[in-house]
C-alpha cells in the first residue's frame, strides 16, 4: 500500500497553502519587522506582543476566534459578504488568512532580528552616498539581512505545512479545498486506517527533518535567528 490520490491532493494543497502563505508573509512581514527593528515608539512593545501571540496561543483558540470572525456575524465575515465574496470559512482563502496569522511570528521575528543586527551605521553610510530609502533597502538592508530572510522563508513555510488546529477549526475538511496533509493524517487515524496514516505521517517526518537539517546546517554562526 502507498499514497492514494486523495493523499496526493492533500499534499499538493498543503504545498500550495504553504507557498502562498510564505509569499504573503514575506511581503507583509518585512515592513512590520523593519518597523519593529527601528522604531522608538511606545507601540513597539504591544505590536511585538501581538505578532508573537500565535507562538503562545493554542491553535484551537486562534481557530475558534477565526471561525467567529470569518463567520456571517463576524467582522471579517461581514466585510467579505459586503464585498460580495461570501463568508471565507470552509474556503482556501480562509485557510490562507488563518495561516498568515498563525505563521506570522515565524517570519517576522527572524527578519526583525536580522534587521536589528545590521544596526544604523550601514544605513547612515548609504544616506551620505545619497541613496534613497528604497535604494538603501534593496541594495544594503536586504542583502545584509539575507540569512534572516532565508530563515524566515523556511520557518514560515515549514510551520504552515505543520499547521493543524486552525485548519481543523475553520476548514470543514473539504477535499482539494481545505483538506491538508495534517488533517488527512488525522482522518486516517480516526478511521483506523493506520497503514495510510503511517505513509503520510512518515513523509511528513522526513520532510520536516530535511527542512530543519537544511536550516541548521546552513547556519554558520551560533548567534541565534540571524
Amino acid at each position, binding site marked *: 500500500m502507498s499514497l492514494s490520490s486523495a493523499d496526493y491532493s492533500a499534499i499538493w494543497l498543503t504545498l500550495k497553502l504553504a507557498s502562498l502563505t510564505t509569499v504573503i508573509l514575506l511581503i507583509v512581514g518585512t515592513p512590520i519587522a523593519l518597523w519593529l527593528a527601528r522604531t522608538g515608539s511606545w507601540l513597539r512593545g504591544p505590536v511585538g506582543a501581538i505578532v508573537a501571540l500565535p507562538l503562545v496561543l493554542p491553535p484551537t483558540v486562534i481557530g475558534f476566534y477565526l*471561525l*467567529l470572525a*470569518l*463567520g*456571517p*456575524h463576524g467582522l471579517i465575515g461581514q466585510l467579505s459578504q459586503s464585498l460580495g465574496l*461570501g*463568508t471565507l*470559512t*470552509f474556503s482556501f482563502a480562509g485557510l490562507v488568512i488563518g495561516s498568515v496569522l498563525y505563521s506570522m511570528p515565524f517570519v517576522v521575528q527572524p527578519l526583525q532580528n536580522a534587521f536589528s543586527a545590521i544596526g544604523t551605521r550601514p544605513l547612515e553610510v548609504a544616506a551620505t552616498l545619497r541613496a534613497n530609502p528604497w535604494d538603501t533597502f534593496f541594495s544594503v538592508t536586504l542583502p545584509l539581512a539575507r540569512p534572516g530572510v532565508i530563515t524566515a522563508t523556511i520557518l514560515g513555510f515549514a510551520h504552515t505545512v505543520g499547521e493543524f488546529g486552525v485548519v*481543523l*477549526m475553520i476548514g*470543514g*475538511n*473539504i477535499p482539494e479545498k481545505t483538506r491538508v496533509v495534517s488533517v488527512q493524517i*488525522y*482522518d486516517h*487515524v*480516526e*478511521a*483506523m486506517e493506520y497503514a495510510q496514516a503511517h505513509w503520510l505521517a512518515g513523509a511528513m517526518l522526513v520532510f520536516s527533518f530535511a527542512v530543519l537539517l537544511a536550516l541548521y546546517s546552513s547556519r554558520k554562526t551560533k548567534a541565534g535567528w540571524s
Partner: protein
Amino acid sequence: MIIRASRFASACLASLVAVFAFGSAQADEVQVAVAANFTAPIQAIAADFEKDTGHKLVTSFGATGQFYTQIKNGAPFEVLLSADDSTPQKLEAEGETIKGSRFTYAVGTLALWSAKEGYVDAKGDVLKKNEYQHLSIANPKAAPYGLAATQVLAKEGLSDKVKDKIVEGQNITQAYQFVSTGNAELGFVALSQIYKDGKITSGSAWIVPASLHDPIKQDAVILNKGMDNPAAKALVDYLKGPKAAAVIKSYGYEI
C-alpha cells in the same frame, strides 16, 4: 547503591499504593471515555450517580475513533461510552474489554438543524431546496452520526446534489459548532445536542425518521483497566437503571 535505591523506591511505592487504596475504600473513581454526542446527558447523569453511589466520575469527551487508538495504546480509561456499536465490538474481539459487559446504553437520533428560527421545516424539505451554501456533517469515516447523515442523503437521492456543499466536522461537536456559529446554514447533528425536555432548545430542526438510516446504536463496555474497579461496574449498572434512562430519554435518545 542501586539495590538500596530501588528498595527505597518500592517502599515509597508501597506506601503510595496504601494511601490510594485507603482513599478508594470509601469512594472509587472511574475514568470514562465518552462519545462527544453524549456530553450533556452524562454530565446530568454524573451528578445523580455521584450523589447516589458515592463514586466519582472522571470524564473525557471525544471522537470514538480517537478513543479506540488511545485505548489500544494504553489510555487509562475504564469504561467506554461509544458513539457506535462497532468500536466496542472490535475492542471486545481484540481482548481489550471485560467479556459480557457490552450493552446498548442509548440509540441516537439524527436531526437536521439550523441556528435560525423557522429555517428548517417539519419535513426537512429545506434540504432539497438549493438555498443554502454549506451543509455541515460529522466525518462519516469516523463518526456514526456522520455516516447516518450520508445514508439519509443517499436515501433522499441528494448525495450528488449536495456534494459540493458538504463541510465536515471531525466529530459531531464540531459539526454542531459550524452550524451554531452560522458558518453553515444547515447541518446534521445529534438530537441530544439541541434537545432538552421534549423540545428543541434553539433554532429550527427536522428530527430525521429512524427509517432513513441504520440505527445509531451506542454501546458501552467495561475496559480491561476497569476490571477490579467497583465504580466501573456501578456506573454500567446505573446506566441500565430507570433514573439514567429517564435522563437519556429527555435528551432525545431511544433506549
